[in-house]
């Protein structure tokens, strides 16, 4: 029987042509890929890859990196800029670390991440590099936040804590002192908004961060603590959001802040959205982190430069002011191939000199105690001497390797009770407590 071919003999399958096109394809690919993957690089320099978020003041960071590269000609810094939101940045960074990516050397850690990064084995323990004496130079709170099971995993670069920014000019006009209690703040806002609206001004009482994300937890924590409530009981570690003080504080937020003096869009605000109406001059009181000082006093970006003042967050009567501890640390990846160079960069960034630069030019509050006595910084930011006390007492969020899961539960719960004015806060709080207990049970 004659052998049958798929192609008539005259047009037998064109192996030759196939081979030629494969070779061509290979050539094209080989031209494309190295060009895409590896960058031209001087062979005698080490590259340190720094995963950072989108900064509020990019120019300062460019300056700092340039300075480092000039002083360390053998090290090149390659920045990978992630999203501004802490939650989104977390997802991006952990995705890389989960895959043991060698493309990460130095990274930023939010104050709540070290336990997670340590337990997962992503962050390198720094005890041998970051000595106990050296740790003494830093504020206590941020250092503690970097310790997990007796080892330290990050060096705090700047500290954040919630603060109340207000329009000094408006408060003066109506003869008000900065509010001590939340009730006082709501009343002052009511008077000022009513008065200014009569003159045709488009103004609201308050803006803060109440979108369903990490910032919501920070904001709510401040109300709850300042009414003697807790998220987790500091002694037993059990959830306490269903407790009476916490529930009353949340009720206040729903009725008088979100449903009262705040801008209508406050439920969709992260930091950038919340500061926008403030620097437009449309808000009297604004809760934010220290960087907002620099932004709101920058005449290029702000219509209220020079009219802003800051003070401690208010509290409920019978309570005490609390600010949520925030801030960012630098960690080194366990999978980094250039740990020595990475440490040099971390050391440089957290040095007194650079922290001072960041304080002066970006408004970031230093973590080194000594800088709170620095004449130049205090000359520029007289409020820093007062703020040191706020920083010293700033309250940490729950420290757990499963904090992201706890936080997601809290975000969902807080968002629900402040968005839906008919929801039963106490009942929702009990449900959220049960969920948090379930998460905590995994780590016990």
């Amino acid at each position, binding site marked *: 029987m004659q052998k049958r071919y*798929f192609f008539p003999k005259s047009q037998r399958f064109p192996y030759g042509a196939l081979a030629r096109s494969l070779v061509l394809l290979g050539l094209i690919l080989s031209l494309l890929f190295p060009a895409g993957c590896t960058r031209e690089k001087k062979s005698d320099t080490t590259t340190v890859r720094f995963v950072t978020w989108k900064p509020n003041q990019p120019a300062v960071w460019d300056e700092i990196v340039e300075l480092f590269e000039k002083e360390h000609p053998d090290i090149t810094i390659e920045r990978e800029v992630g999203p501004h939101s802490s*939650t989104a940045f*977390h*997802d991006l960074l*952990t*995705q890389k670390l*989960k895959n043991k990516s060698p493309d990460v050397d130095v990274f930023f850690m939010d104050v709540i991440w070290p*336990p*997670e990064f340590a*337990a*997962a*084995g992503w962050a390198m323990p720094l005890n041998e590099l970051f000595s106990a004496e050296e740790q003494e130079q830093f504020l206590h709170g941020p250092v503690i936040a970097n310790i997990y099971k007796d080892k330290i995993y990050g060096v705090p670069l700047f500290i954040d804590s919630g603060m109340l920014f207000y329009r000094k000019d408006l408060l003066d006009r109506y003869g008000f002192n900065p509010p001590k209690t939340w009730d006082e703040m709501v009343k002052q806002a009511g008077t000022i908004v009513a008065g200014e609206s009569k003159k045709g001004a*488009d103004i609201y009482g308050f803006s803060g961060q109440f*979108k*369903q*994300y990490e910032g919501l937890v920070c904001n709510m924590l401040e109300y709850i603590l300042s009414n003697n409530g807790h998220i987790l009981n500091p002694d037993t570690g059990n959830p306490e959001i269903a407790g009476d003080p916490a529930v009353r504080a949340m009720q206040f937020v729903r009725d008088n802040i979100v449903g009262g003096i705040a*801008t*209508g*869009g*406050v*439920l*969709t605000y992260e930091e950038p959205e919340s500061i*926008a*109406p403030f620097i*437009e001059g*449309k808000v009297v009181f604004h809760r934010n982190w220290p960087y907002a000082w620099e932004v709101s006093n920058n005449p290029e970006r702000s219509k209220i430069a020079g009219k802003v003042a800051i003070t401690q967050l208010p509290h409920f009567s019978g309570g005490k002011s609390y600010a949520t501890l925030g801030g960012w640390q630098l960690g080194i990846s366990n999978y980094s191939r250039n740990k020595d160079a990475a440490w040099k960069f971390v050391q440089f960034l957290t040095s007194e000199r650079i922290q001072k630069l960041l304080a002066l030019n970006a408004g970031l509050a230093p973590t080194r105690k000594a800088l709170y006595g620095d004449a130049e910084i205090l000359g520029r930011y007289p409020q820093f001497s007062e703020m040191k006390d706020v920083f010293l007492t700033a309250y940490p969020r729950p420290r757990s*390797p*499963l904090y*992201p*899961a706890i936080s*997601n539960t809290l*975000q*969902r719960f807080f*968002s*629900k009770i402040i*968005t*839906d004015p008919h929801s039963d806060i106490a009942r929702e709080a009990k449900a959220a407590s049960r969920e948090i207990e379930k998460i905590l049970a*995994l*780590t016990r």
Partner: protein
Amino acid sequence: MFALSLIAPCFLFILTFAFYPIAYSFFLSLHRIIISLPGLEQPFIWFGNYKELFHDKIALQSLVNTFLFVFTTTFFELLFGLAIALAINKHFRGRGIVRAAVLIPWAIPTVVASQMWRFIFNDTYGLLNYAFFGSDTALYQAWLADPLFAFLAIVAADVWKTSSFAALIILAGLQTIPDELYDAAKIDGATAWQRFVKITLPLVKPALLIALLFRTMDAFRVFDLVFVMTQGGPADSTNVLQFYGYKKIFAEGLMGYGSTISVLVFFVTLLISLLYLKMIGTRLFGERS
């Protein structure tokens, strides 16, 4: 043998890029894997995650949200898609430009489109507020702050974006209808409405069903719109299944549980597509035989 070797690359491709991830997700979903607690190791827990999933009220709510999203978006997309397709099937001057313009929303990457819609719905500088209330800023609404409006906002964004895709498929169906049918109907005295109901609709039905199939499966996997516009909020009103799964895996590090959610999404999509395929299949072949 030669035939086999020819399909082998394609087969391998599907095996590595479609089958393997699904199988691996399923494998992961049978374990308890918590990234930030390596000390727990990764115990095999049979269907423990599935049991937990069926008792998870948030997952259930996000499943309901997802179905609501699928129903509303596919309904409006097919409706608008049909309208657009009918319009651009007519002969008029500049039809080519209009046809191209209709496709623009579909050609824009979803993330970019979502960002645009987020700006449109913004409470202080959003276009929507300006369109409704002009410069009377006192009336400005924070659309994305309201659970119902936030949900409608992601529906609107999706309808805007993918109606043209439905239109494209329906247009292809419309073009297979011979003009003679309409001419004959006209001679018989059929009105425009009668021609539409008796000729256009029945003949374009297969295309409509295909558009429906694609849109349902696609809508069920909605993620980017939610990620950019609302992050699932406010009050979880826009939390859809895919986003919930993403949160579990990427934010909370619950690999096993998150994979369980992905597997659920996979099975629901599979079920929907099998159902539709059966419908389309019988209809198409039923008419032929």
